[in-house]
């Protein structure tokens, strides 16, 4: 019944791992040709694969794990999806309902353990309710502010000898759940008028624009009003990264231009962003002169850390579309002189060295920033880029200019090392004709490196761009800056030979140590369309990610290099 429902729901791939409590389901999958089950090597990777799929497509990824350790291994991936509002349905096996609570073999209270990190969860109480429960799970996961939903299934609910009538439920009824379907027109008009009257406006957009499928109306609005645009880490690609109006990412490692533009703005239009602590720096000093318009599907995101002057609760795509229509109807433009002088100021901040200037050195050693810039050139800015967590993640966010939404897959909220490779796999599986790169480091990649085996089994030729500096770079950076250079437990002795490791898993490994080899070898790697290539790039360990906001300061308080600050 579960497998039939998944087929009727249009699920093509399930990411999972078998075990006692779900062996009936795996048996049913054996006979079902419309759904392919991807066998990972660790359940955490199953959740990240489903997550990568969801980020790339906007649809819920489906995970199937067994009870006990299967379920607990999935927890990190569920929390990752929860923090970034990613739709996911996790089916976890459970011991038979008659044994629940007896500390049975491989029993764990999955609903209890996952409670704080799911949008909702269900325990199946009777086999007949399975189609309805699953329909609700998909509906809740994908609608409103998306998120992961756990469905815990005791083994006796899937007994193949019990037969029940199955009807695919086309609709779902939930009296206590109804996310807003449109924003308040009066508020939208008020916001439009505020934007027209603004002298120093800025558009700050986040992951909600990606998952809310709103980058088209957002781009139209920004062009119409000639607004400077900055994206959060989660929002990259929501507005074309190579466009003149784009100021780069904002926040802790955001661009000098974006952070100063925010600080000096008089009207901030926040769309699908949540004023995260890694964005706003010190809340009391945040943007002292700005009125704030905040559009979000989740009312609890509004005025959580920063009070909104004009809150608008609703789906970002419909709110922005309505705002564009209202502006057309009003037919006015913002004061051209004020806007021209605002842009002049912004261009002064941007300067001639680009949004993220860095010292390219003498070429004797590869800079990690250069590696990302080269990746951007080689893939013509059109790849799916999954990243792990650390310095390489920030370099990827700064130097890879995403022109399209859903192309940048990273664990923004939870910051999960080990996310990159399985997320890249999830994207590659569903977009076999598009280049998929995993930008990672020698620390993060080892957190889910076993998935190289899954890649071989299912033919997933992702390209791993390992920025290997032989150190846990971000930890080391903080130790340099905050802990007087004491590199406590941030270095990696006895690293494996990644080339041999890749080869042992049946893939191609390439080591790049010279700057002159960087581009040609990367091109060679991406030319190998049907092979996974592990590019182990030796990069400068002394590089730091800049700018870096100074703790508890305002948006404009930043270190710009090891010696300069604002």
């Amino acid at each position: 019944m579960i497998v039939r429902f998944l087929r009727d729901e249009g699920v093509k791939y399930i990411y999972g791992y078998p075990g006692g409590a779900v062996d009936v389901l795996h048996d049913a999958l054996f006979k079902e040709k419309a759904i392919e089950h991807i066998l990972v090597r660790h359940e955490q990777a199953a959740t990240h694969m489903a997550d990568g799929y969801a980020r790339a497509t906007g649809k819920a990824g489906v995970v199937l794990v067994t009870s006990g350790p299967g379920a607990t291994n999935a927890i990190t991936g569920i929390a990752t999806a929860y923090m970034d509002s990613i739709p996911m349905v996790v089916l976890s096996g459970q011991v038979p309902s008659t044994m629940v609570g007896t500390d049975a073999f491989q029993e764990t209270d999955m609903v209890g353990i996952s409670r704080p990190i799911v949008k909702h969860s269900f325990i199946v109480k009777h086999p007949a309710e399975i189609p309805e429960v699953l329909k609700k799970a998909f509906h809740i996961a994908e609608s409103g502010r998306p998120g992961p939903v756990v469905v815990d299934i005791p083994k006796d609910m899937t007994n193949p000898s019990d037969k029940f009538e199955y009807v695919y439920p086309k609709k779902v009824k939930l009296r206590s759940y109804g996310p807003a379907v449109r924003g308040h027109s009066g508020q939208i008009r008020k916001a439009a008028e505020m934007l027209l009257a603004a002298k120093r406006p800025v558009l700050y957009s986040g992951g909600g624009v990606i998952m809310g499928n709103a980058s088209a109306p957002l781009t139209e609005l920004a062009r119409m009003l000639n607004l400077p645009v900055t994206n959060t880490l989660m929002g990259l690609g929501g507005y074309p990264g190579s466009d003149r109006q784009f100021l780069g990412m904002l926040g802790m490692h955001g661009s000098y231009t974006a952070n100063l533009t925010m600080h000096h703005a008089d009207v901030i239009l926040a769309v699908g962003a949540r004023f995260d602590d890694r964005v706003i720096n010190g809340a009391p000093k945040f943007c002292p002169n700005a009125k704030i318009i905040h559009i979000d599907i989740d009312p609890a995101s509004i005025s959580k850390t920063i009070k909104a002057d004009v809150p608008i609760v609703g789906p970002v795509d419909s709110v922005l579309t309505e705002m564009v229509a209202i502006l057309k109807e009003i037919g006015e433009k913002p004061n051209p002189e004020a806007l021209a002088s605002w842009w002049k100021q912004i261009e002064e901040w941007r300067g001639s060295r680009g949004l993220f200037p860095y010292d390219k050195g003498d070429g004797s050693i590869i800079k990690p920033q250069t590696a990302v810039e080269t990746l951007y050139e080689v893939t013509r800015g059109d790849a799916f880029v999954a990243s792990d967590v650390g310095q390489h993640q920030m370099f990827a966010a700064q130097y890879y200019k995403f022109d399209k939404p859903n192309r940048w897959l990273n664990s923004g909220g939870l910051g999960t090392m080990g996310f990159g490779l399985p997320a890249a796999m999830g994207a590659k599986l569903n977009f076999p004709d598009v280049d998929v790169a995993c930008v990672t480091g020698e620390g993060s990649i080892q957190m889910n490196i076993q998935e190289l085996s899954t890649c071989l089994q299912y033919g997933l030729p992702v390209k791993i761009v390992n920025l290997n500096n032989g150190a846990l770079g971000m930890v080391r950076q903080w130790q340099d800056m905050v802990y007087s250079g004491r590199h406590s437990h941030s270095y990696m002795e006895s690293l494996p030979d990644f080339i041999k490791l890749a080869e042992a898993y049946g893939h191609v490994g390439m080591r790049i140590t010279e700057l002159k080899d960087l581009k040609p070898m990367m091109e060679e790697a991406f030319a190998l369309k049907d092979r996974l290539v592990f590019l182990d790039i030796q990069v400068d360990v002394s590089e730091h990610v800049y700018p870096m906001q100074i703790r508890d300061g305002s948006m404009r308080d930043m270190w710009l290099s090891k010696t300069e600050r604002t």
Partner: protein
Amino acid sequence: MRHIISLLLENEPGALSRVVGLFSQRNYNIESLTVAPTEDPTLSRLTLTTVGHDEVIEQITKNLNKLIEVVKLVNLSESAHIERELMLVKVKATGAQRAEIKRTADIFRGQIVDVTSSVYTVQLAGTSDKLDSFIQAIGTASILEVVRSGVTGIARGDKTLTI
């Protein structure tokens, strides 16, 4: 400031744990909590009291509303309402104390609902303040045991919390 938040909750296993979990997860306070099914057996009515600034209370109500099993919610403290708490107090009652306790219970419109040769059990309903005052009036020295139900409440006038 203290707030009384009242909600209709799907009468399903696990629903209560989500409400309670939310408070610990987001570092909110719960001072008291009462919950029981309503006349509609698919719904429970849950009333809780909490303390916090207006911004915190706003976040609490928003996050409670986000829980799938919360059907409807009202912050009773925002308008005229009636609040009640039930208390059962077991007090030492010997000699002259017996008459004194009876008198005090009468003043507070309490009832003595159980009697032994040395103990009275007093039942008292009212606002939390009134129950506090009763305890003070009796004096903690003679109190053997106190059981309080936690606050429950209802809006005054025509307003109802129903679906």
